[in-house]
């Protein structure tokens, strides 16, 4: 936790300094960055320049020809990514993106304006790759690639959560996420990652998930959740793992298996699939939907992602169902099929319950849990008692990636509105495609950069506070595992009294199961606002 | 800005950027500027302090006699002949007594007056309501008392028509040209959408000529300077009983009428 109180942290000065930004050297402030990638993590996945180092040191132990490596990497990527090439050239610095970034709004640091974040890279691009930059030099806004510049890159490109909010407003669609991804690839050429990404990547590569849960740990975690479910509902559930011949492979971020409140969402999945009698299986090999590889490099993303199709093929399932996760869905929607497809060994997904064909996933063969559930609710295939969520006043946080990298906006809302009675939207410029990041995405949800996370989450928290004050909202729902972890911290700091919940948990609370007990509590053990409460309320209103 | 030979050259040399750069460079900016021409002499203009007209109805024995005046005006000023009364353009025309002088009509006038047609035209008032209301100064009163219209500036709002107590103004409801039988090439027509009216032939006065109607009236229309004691107009006003249209409105018309008697 930051030492600063919310009142102090929210004193933000948006006025930039007098001197030109290029003249302001990077100042790495503690609490605003993560630890550098460890030797071990890099070695595990065979990344260059593994060594013992600390980002706080002056010497980052770079290879002698580091400039050459970076510039060669840039040249290569200019040819491999038209997006990168175009985005380096066409920005007019109109400033529309400036106040769209949650990190800028939370820190006031001008280099957190998306345009300047990109200029950090562009300034070098102009010097090395454009005629104008070579001739006009500084006049064209170009500069040399020095070690300070490199450090600045490292500092600021690990202060971007690739949330794409700026891209929505950019008249040319310049996407800072894309620039950050390339910049991080370049940094990784020199072994300059952060451990909070490199570690999970190594874990995921070797053990199948970010948390590094080994097969037996996964089953025991789920067993624990099954006990909890039985305690609340009286229903006994027996899921299967790595089962060949199942119809559906279910993949969710591993965070849901381990950390509250994600575990409740995970319980929701288990309950839902049991209630439906779904022929599905978990996998311990492909036990990660998320993909910290994609925060590292395209190649690493692909290496981690490959397991899902590989496992689906091995198990012989018909299609894949994906859990609630943010960047996981950007990867699944925009990258997976291109990387590791074609998935011609699978079939176009069909809901076994409603018969709905998921045409929009005809090629990837992977369906979002919210799409799946919304379809069930639309066809009234689950019995719902929304009053079981009456003790919650719910708002919904659109996760960046499903909203701006996919367009999944209505499905979760449809579910929420069906399963709870008190739903309130946050202000319109902070939801849907204009949603604010939790401030901890793209691998930044470490503890050492807590100030950065709290600052980055300020705009989101501020919008929650608005509905909290206005409507008494006490529950922030979302469909992202990082959100569930990050927003909880964020809420405790900025808006105490608001908890975080997965949409499937809300659903599971309200869902009536075969052979269940009369539920007295929700999945978290909180007492439901039962009939008595309601009556009392009415009485008091009459009086 | 004004362009005659002297003024033009003065003005051109002094404008904006050119003044700053000095005259040697001026030629490069605006090639073809040359030296001034010889001095000029005064014109032959008729001038007055207040032009006025007396209409001697006794001197119009027949319809033909006053129609001549109307025709002279129409021909010289390219006034269209439009059949549709609603769209008529009239500078000078004839009206019955009860219409020309509605406020003094008592219903029992002599038969000759009842039949008589009075020439009516813009009164070129001393205190013209039309000038007061015009939002662009397209109608204005000159120093010599003539109420003139600047057809280049008129926006066609027709406020002046609502203000004129004499119905002296006409509006071009459509392009007048197709309705002009014999075009006088030395006088412009008007464009659609502007108001027009009699201007006491201001251009003719400048050339030393009398207004067209006066010239054609055979002495029935007397024209001159109201402020000049010896002018025809003053002499007539001194000797004859005259009336003006709607004197109660305080517009002080510049057109006087001799109706009867001697």
């Amino acid at each position, binding site marked *: 936790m930051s030492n600063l109180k919310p009142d102090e942290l929210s004193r933000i000065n948006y006025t930039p300094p007098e001197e030109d930004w290029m003249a302001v050297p990077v100042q790495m402030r503690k609490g605003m960055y993560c630890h550098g990638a460890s030797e071990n993590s890099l070695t595990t996945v065979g990344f260059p320049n593994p060594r013992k180092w600390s980002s706080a040191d002056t010497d980052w132990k770079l290879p002698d020809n580091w400039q050459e490596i970076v510039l060669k990497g840039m040249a290569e990527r200019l040819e491999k990514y038209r997006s990168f090439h175009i985005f380096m050239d066409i920005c007019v610095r109109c400033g529309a993106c400036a106040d769209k970034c949650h990190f800028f709004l939370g820190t006031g640091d001008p280099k957190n304006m998306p345009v300047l974040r990109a200029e950090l890279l562009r300034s070098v691009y102009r010097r090395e790759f454009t005629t104008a930059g070579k001739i006009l030099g500084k006049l064209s806004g170009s500069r040399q690639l020095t070690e300070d510049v490199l450090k600045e890159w490292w500092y600021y490109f690990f202060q971007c959560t690739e949330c794409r909010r700026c891209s929505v407003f950019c008249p040319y669609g310049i996407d800072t996420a894309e620039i950050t991804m390339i910049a991080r690839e370049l940094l990784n050429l020199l072994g300059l990652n952060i451990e909070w990404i490199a570690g999970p990547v190594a874990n995921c590569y070797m053990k199948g998930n970010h948390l590094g849960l080994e097969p037996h740990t996964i089953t025991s975690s789920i067993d624990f959740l099954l006990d909890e479910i039985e305690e609340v509902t009286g229903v006994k559930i027996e899921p299967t793992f790595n089962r060949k011949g199942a119809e559906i492979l279910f993949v969710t971020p591993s965070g849901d298996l381990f950390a509250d409140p994600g575990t409740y969402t995970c319980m929701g999945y288990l309950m839902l699939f049991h209630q439906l009698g779904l022929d599905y299986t978990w996998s311990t090999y492909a036990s990660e939907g998320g993909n910290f590889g994609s925060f590292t490099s395209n190649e690493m993303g692909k290496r981690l992602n490959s397991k899902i199709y590989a496992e689906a093929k091995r198990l012989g399932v018909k299609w894949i169902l994906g859990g609630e996760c943010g960047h996981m869905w950007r990867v699944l929607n925009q990258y997976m099929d291109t990387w590791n497809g074609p998935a011609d060994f699978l079939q176009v997904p069909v809901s076994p319950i409603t018969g709905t064909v998921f045409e929009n996933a005809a090629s990837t063969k992977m369906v979002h849990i919210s799409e799946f559930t919304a379809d069930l609710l639309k066809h009234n295939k689950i019995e719902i008692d929304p009053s079981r969520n009456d003790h919650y006043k719910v708002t919904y946080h659109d996760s960046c990636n499903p909203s701006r990298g996919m367009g999944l906006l209505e499905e979760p809302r449809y579910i929420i509105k069906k399963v709870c009675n008190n739903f309130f939207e946050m202000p319109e410029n902070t939801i849907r495609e204009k949603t604010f990041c939790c401030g901890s995405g793209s691998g930044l949800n470490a503890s050492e950069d807590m100030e950065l996370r709290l600052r980055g989450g300020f705009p989101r928290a501020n919008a929650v506070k608005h509905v909290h004050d206005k409507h008494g909202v006490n529950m922030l729902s979302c469909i992202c595992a990082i959100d569930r972890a990050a927003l909880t911290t964020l809420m405790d700091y900025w808006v105490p009294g608001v908890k975080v919940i997965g949409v499937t948990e809300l659903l599971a609370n309200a869902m009536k199961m075969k052979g269940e007990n009369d539920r007295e509590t929700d999945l978290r053990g909180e007492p439901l606002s039962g009939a008595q409460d309601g009556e009392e309320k009415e009485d008091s209103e009459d009086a | 800005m004004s362009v005659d030979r002297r003024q033009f050259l003065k003005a051109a040399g002094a404008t904006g950027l050119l003044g700053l750069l000095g005259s040697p460079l001026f030629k490069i900016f605006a090639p073809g500027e040359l030296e001034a021409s010889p001095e000029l002499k005064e014109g032959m203009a008729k001038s007055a302090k207040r032009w006025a007209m007396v209409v001697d109805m006794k001197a119009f024995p027949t319809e033909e006699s006053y129609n001549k005046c109307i025709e002279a005006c129409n021909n010289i000023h390219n006034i269209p002949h439009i059949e549709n009364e*609603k769209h008529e353009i009239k500078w000078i025309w004839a009206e019955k007594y009860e219409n020309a002088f509605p406020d003094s009509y008592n219903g029992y006038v002599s038969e000759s007056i009842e039949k008589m047609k009075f020439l009516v035209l813009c009164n070129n008032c001393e205190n013209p*309501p039309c000038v007061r*209301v015009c939002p*662009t100064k397209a109608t204005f009163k000159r120093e010599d008392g003539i109420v003139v219209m600047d057809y280049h500036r008129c926006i*066609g709002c027709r406020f002046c028509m*609502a203000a004129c107590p004499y119905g002296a103004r006409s509006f071009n409801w459509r392009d007048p040209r197709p309705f002009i039988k014999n075009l006088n090439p030395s006088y412009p027509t008007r464009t659609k*959408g*502007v108001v027009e009216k009699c201007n006491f032939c201001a251009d003719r006065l400048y050339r030393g000529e009398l207004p067209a109607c006066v010239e054609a009236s055979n002495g029935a229309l007397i024209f001159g300077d109201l402020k000049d004691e010896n002018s025809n107009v003053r002499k007539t006003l001194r000797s004859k009983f005259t009336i003006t249209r709607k004197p109660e409105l305080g*517009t002080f018309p510049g057109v006087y009428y001799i109706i009867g008697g001697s």
Partner: protein
Amino acid sequence: MIEKALSGSKYYWAWICFLLAVILVGVAAYIRQFHYGLGLTGMSRDVSWGFYIAQFTFFVGVAASAVMVVLPYYLHDFKRFGRITILGEFLAIPSVIMCMLFIFVDMGQPTRILNVILHPTPNSVMFWDMIVLSGYLMLNIVVGWVSLSSHYKLVHPPKWIKPLVFLSIPWAFSIHTVTAFLYSGLPARHFWLSAIMAVRFLSSAFASGPALLVLLCLLIKRITKFDPGDRAIKGLVTIVTYALIVSIFFVGLELFTAFYSHIPGHMQSFKYLYFGLEGHGKLIPLMWFSTLLAITAVLLLLIPATRTNQTTLVIACIFVHVSLWVDKGFGFVIGGFIPNPLEKITEYWPTLNELLVTAGIWSIGMLVLTALYRIAIVVKVELEA
């Protein structure tokens, strides 16, 4: 907030498309008029202003009537108008826009419109009309927009807005006063030459404008989730009732002066309008229709049972509005030109082309009104959600 006007149900879009279609027809009719000249209208050498200017006069009144909600709310802290002040201000904006458009289409040489600014002429009432109208438009846009957006952002409106609000109150009176001066200062037009013209205009405006606002409020209550509030509507109805009575009273004063003094010039236009003059009387049915509506409306508004019944209230408000629209948006202007200064009679009736242009302008007004009301209502509903 503008983008809120760009989303809506299919009924909303059907309505917008309908308006756009009418606007298109109006524009086509105007282009025709532009090329042919104003001869395409029913106006003439004698009746040189017609439907356009009459509509202008009427809508100046509607625009000015916004003050009837702004004034009680801001000066007298009349709380129940709080929910509808924005509706009043947003009614003024399209009204003024319509006024300007009606003047524009009435111009013989619209391409020279800038002459009014290039050659400012303070002795012309029309010059002042341009100033007060554009000023009033700006005031309402700024005041309405800034207070709505502050409201929307849940921040206090900026301090400089208060003086503008207070300025807009006398300004509203000024627009209709100046418009009355357009007429009442003309020497030869006895019908208009009356010192009470400005107050007569204002009283009829304060009846017709709020009557329209009542209708709009009831419509909004019915088709949107926003409820302007019964108490606000009641307040408006009271204003309508007394303004209408005063307005009728003023007409009575004019009639007395004209007919008791028995000065022909003063009587003729009234005679033409209500009884016919020398065999001419095209407007007689319309004028009596208007009179009948006004009297019925007074009764409906005075009797408590019909005043509180929503159906009869709607009828009364429609009657008020239509009655005054006929009176001011037609009879008043045409009547002033008949007979002409030579005491001849040329009658006037608008032509189809003229009506199409007029319909186009109404549609532009309604389009602006719809968009503004849509924005205001969406904002209000969102805030109350």
